């Protein structure tokens, strides 16, 4: 079942002097529960493609359908709501809310979705256990290591059971042990929760674990390989 359909998408940035084709005629599909990595050199358009998939940016031309919904047809407020309900984000710099505890960070989106307290607590403890941080539920981000923060960020991204999770260089700031732990957790959750994971990455460890590797160069897909 297709979760994402990208058809002939272009993203052109027009600065005053030069025109940049950040995404240059990309067409891709993602199935449910995929564990895919988008790789390529810096400036190849990985992050731009991820932003387009996440509805944070709109394509100059082409179509992106998420579960059949064309993102370019949604109003700004509808797009925010759509993101909240369907897409989980994991950022390179973790971006947890510093004034909230680990558990509160995980519950944040569920709170925005007005889920009941009991459901929120049940889900947040389930995820804290899944990422191996159930003993740090009450800790604020400043009291957690980088790896622990990123694991909480993954838990937050999965909290409301989105259709897919977009992770932009999730291991870039982590040491190898933390990165391995994080990847194992993500793979396990991908398997258990049947949620699609799409990474943009330079990290060979991520590439090694990915089930599908999409290589971008100059905004174009130059290879799309499934490893299993």
């Amino acid at each position, binding site marked *: 079942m297709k979760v994402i359909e990208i058809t002939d998408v272009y993203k052109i940035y027009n600065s005053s002097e030069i025109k940049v084709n950040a995404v240059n005629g990309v067409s891709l599909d993602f199935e449910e529960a995929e564990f895919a990595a988008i790789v390529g050199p810096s400036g190849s358009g990985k992050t731009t493609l991820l932003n387009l998939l996440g509805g*944070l940016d709109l394509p100059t031309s082409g179509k992106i359908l998420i579960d059949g919904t064309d993102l370019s047809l949604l109003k*700004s407020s509808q797009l925010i*709501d759509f993101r*909240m309900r369907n897409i989980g*984000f994991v950022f390179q710099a973790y*971006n947890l*809310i510093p*004034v909230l505890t680990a558990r509160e960070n995980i519950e*944040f*989106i569920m709170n925005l979705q007005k889920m009941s307290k009991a459901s929120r607590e049940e889900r947040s403890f389930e995820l804290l256990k899944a990422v191996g941080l159930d003993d740090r539920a009450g800790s604020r981000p400043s009291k957690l290591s980088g790896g622990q923060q990123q694991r909480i960020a993954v838990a937050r991204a999965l909290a409301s059971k989105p259709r897919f999770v977009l992770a932009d260089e999730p291991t870039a700031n982590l040491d190898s042990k933390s990165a391995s732990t994080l990847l194992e957790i993500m793979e396990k959750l991908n398997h258990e929760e049947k949620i699609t994971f799409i990474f943009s990455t330079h990290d060979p460890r991520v590439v090694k674990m990915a089930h599908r590797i999409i290589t971008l160069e100059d905004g174009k897909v130059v290879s799309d390989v499934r490893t299993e």
Partner: protein
Amino acid sequence: MIPEIAWKNVWRNKSRSLIVITAVTIGVFAGVFTIAVMNSSVVQRIDAAVNEELSHIQVNNKEFRSSSDIKSLIPDYDKVVTDMMKAPGMQDLTGRIIIRGIASTAGRSTGVEINGINAAKEKQIFTLHEKLIPGTGDFLDTETKYNKAFIGEKLAKELNIIRYSITEESLKKLKDEKLPGEISTKLIALKGERFTSDKKFSRAVEAVLLPGEYRKYIYLIKEAAWSYRPGSKIILSFIDINNNQTEAAFRVSGIFRTNNDMFEAMSVFVPEEELRQLTGIPENSYHRVIGRLKDNSLSEAASAYLKKELPGYEVMQWKEIQPDLAMLADMMQQIYGIFMGIILAALSFGIVNTMLMSVLERTREIGMLSAIGMNRNRIFSMIMLESVFLSLTGGLSGMLVSGIVIAATSKNGINLVQYSEGLEAFGYSAYLFPTIDAPFFIMTTILIVFTGILSSVYPARKALKLNPIEALRKE
């Protein structure tokens, strides 16, 4: 959830928030306390005017105020009294005979208003008897074979009834009042001299003290050097009901001190029956009937009722008798508004600045919140609540501090005796008892919340304009 995050965000940068909250606290305290002090001077002035001079309602013969004619009496006093007692909130009333005359002593004379009163009744309506200077006698209470008069301190000074001298006793009083020893030493030069007027004594003291010392201690020195011989005699001359020039000697039964120099200088109170006998005004005839209401706020209703019921008379409430006081009360309300407006506007700039810094520091975080699904309304609410919490915390602590300081100062009053001569010339007390009413506190709280909301608009709009992608890219 949004209020909880907003509150936590306020305390993210503790020192910055505390500085803003302290600034708001000081600003609100400065505003509220200054207004309480200004308010006290007006409230005290109005209270003094109502309780000592005017009461709430006066009914006069229609011609009396313009002509001051002794014959402008209230003809059917009993009917007027019956009607007045029916007025809303009327508690008590009394009649007064009021004539113009001249008060004189050997070598001094001055124009006065002579009030023939029923002393017992007056005590129920006015508090003037409480203004008797201790040791100067009583409020027309003691029965003597002489005519008696209750006069103001200012008039007593005008008529040279009050004398000043530096004696052992006055120096002891000054020592008890903590007058510095070197000042007392300088005053010894005046020992033994007797000054017949305030002016002469002031000049003599000025000559022995430095200007700063004089300004600071003259009030205290005068109080200690003040002396009066009980039963001093004054002559009151006036025209009687048959247009004959009449004069009679009166013994001063007591001297009162109020905050109104003009009232003190102009008013002489004598027993009604003595004046009736001297002027030939018949029994049960008065120039004015004065009514005391249960509450000042009933003045309008009572006045309207009596104007309808007594069309042949001049019915006036205190605001009409002294319109300057009513105008002052109204004007003060406007001044309070302007004053608080300026303070809150200044505070709002501080809050805008802090909130703007806070938003710009959190660009990436706000971008992330928008990316993961926090909509514009929620982001706006979060920033607005942070601003409201900041201003409200400062505002409430400012009002708490104000409340404590007002409660403390209203107990003993703020001593402005150094400026008493100037203040009392305009009817204001040299002791201010700061006061503020509950609606003012409530209104100020609402204004502070409003300021917080208003101050959040610009920073919140700035936050809403952030593009999540650009915001997330920020380091």
